[in-house]
């Protein structure tokens, strides 16, 4: 958890905290009018956007990327650093998902305190989706900087607000990428979304570790 220290401080010292508030507020505003069924979608949207922000603020900055060279002169490995940064970003995503669900649930019709299990499942789905988003974002920012995180943020934001018809067209082309529509089914324990999330999370960590090793060998 050494890497979490890097991200934790940034919540209050940089604009990360403000961005997270905006993401949670935006997700709640967009998804709170669809009834209880939108809760998983709300959590996934907040979790993915939060994780991308965690990557951007914790690993994607130019100085942060340059500082990795010095980090890797200490007794650690590229794989450990990649895993740590991924975990830190996922933690940010989980925090965003929790905040979105806690704030959004009372606004969603049909959700009662008795739906605690539904809330937990939504948060779990949001956290897992955050893992996939971080898995895509982390090697991306280490290769291309925060511009990659920006593109991902917009992509995830867009896929969370598109209409079903537009989404179907998008999924035909970009369904293999992490997206809110696919991961909204995580909460109902569908196998395909979980495989999708696992592949992107593990693949992302491996790709990030390889990127780090190549850049700072």
């Amino acid at each position: 958890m050494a890497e979490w220290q890097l991200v934790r401080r940034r919540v209050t010292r940089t604009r990360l905290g403000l961005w997270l508030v905006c993401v949670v507020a935006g997700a709640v505003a967009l998804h709170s009018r669809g009834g209880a069924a939108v809760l998983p979608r709300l959590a996934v949207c907040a979790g993915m956007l939060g994780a991308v922000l965690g990557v951007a603020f914790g690993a994607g900055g130019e100085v942060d990327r340059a500082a990795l060279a010095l980090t890797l002169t200490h007794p650690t490995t590229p794989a450990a650093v990649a895993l740590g940064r991924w975990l830190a970003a996922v933690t940010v995503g989980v925090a965003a998902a929790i905040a979105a669900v806690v704030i959004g649930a009372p606004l969603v019709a049909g959700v009662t305190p008795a739906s605690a299990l539904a809330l937990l499942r939504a948060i779990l789905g949001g956290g897992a989706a955050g893992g996939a988003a971080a898995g895509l974002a982390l090697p991306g920012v280490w290769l291309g900087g925060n511009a990659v995180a920006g593109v991902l943020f917009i992509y995830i934001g867009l896929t969370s607000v598109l209409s079903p018809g537009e989404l179907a067209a998008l999924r035909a082309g970009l369904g293999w990428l992490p997206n809110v529509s696919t991961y909204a089914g995580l909460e109902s324990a569908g196998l395909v979304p979980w495989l999708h999330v696992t592949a992107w999370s593990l693949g992302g960590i491996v790709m990030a570790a390889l990127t780090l090793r190549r850049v700072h060998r």
Partner: protein
Amino acid sequence: MSVPLLALSGVTKRFSGRARAIDAVSLEVIPGEVVGVVGPSGAGTSTLLRLAGALLRPDAGTVRLGGVPLDRAAARRFIGWAPEAPVFPPALTVSEVLSYLAQFHGATVARRALVGAALEIGGLEPVAGRRTGLLSRAWLHRLALAQAALGRRRVLLLDQTLSSLDAVARRTLAERLAALAARGMAIVIAAHDLAVLERVAMRVVVLHQGAVVRSGALATLVGERVLEIVLDQPPEHVPPGFRVTASGLETDLARGSVEAALAVCRAYRLAVRASRVREKSLEDLVLETWDAAPR
């Protein structure tokens, strides 16, 4: 003779499309020794340090730590590196950066002690709570030194770490480096600021175009005397063995006397206004090497 802690043997490094950056360099550093690596820009001092720290892989030759071929894992544990342009996460404070890096070296309890020791080595107590993004270059170099000394490091590789410091800070850090060396740490310093090395180094290696051109104990290399001669006007003909300076000429007194050198000046009808004898500096040594080297 002590067993070398760090030993480079015939190390060669070539970057793609360029001549050899490092050409068959051999260097041994024993525990407690401070070695200075000097040379003009592009001589290969930084590359040599990176090879010694296993940050670059040599094309030929070997690097050994304690007699064992050096791998990356051992280098991370036992060799501290302070780069020429150190960069740290800007949102963290100095003590947070050290605490973050100390996590790789020890358990939570030991970490506080490691951070405290590192702050002391770098003389960083006054800025311990300041964010690294707000630090001046000199403080960043101190932090680079502090993080390099973290943990159970036995070798320190310092690339221009002391060069951008003010005189007081330089003296303080030089004393701390001497204390680290006294505890058995081997220290290799690359520096363009040669006055720093004259203060701390025991031995100096002069590089030119990636090859060692001079090497030896500092006292031996710079102990020679130089005669500086101030002339009324620039010389039309320079006597053999003399060098032109801004105020006149100078010559080494290795084999001759002051009287003999002044007699040569009279023979060349040079109007000598004044003269003085001084000890040769490290800068003289590097410039001599540069002047004598083929280009």
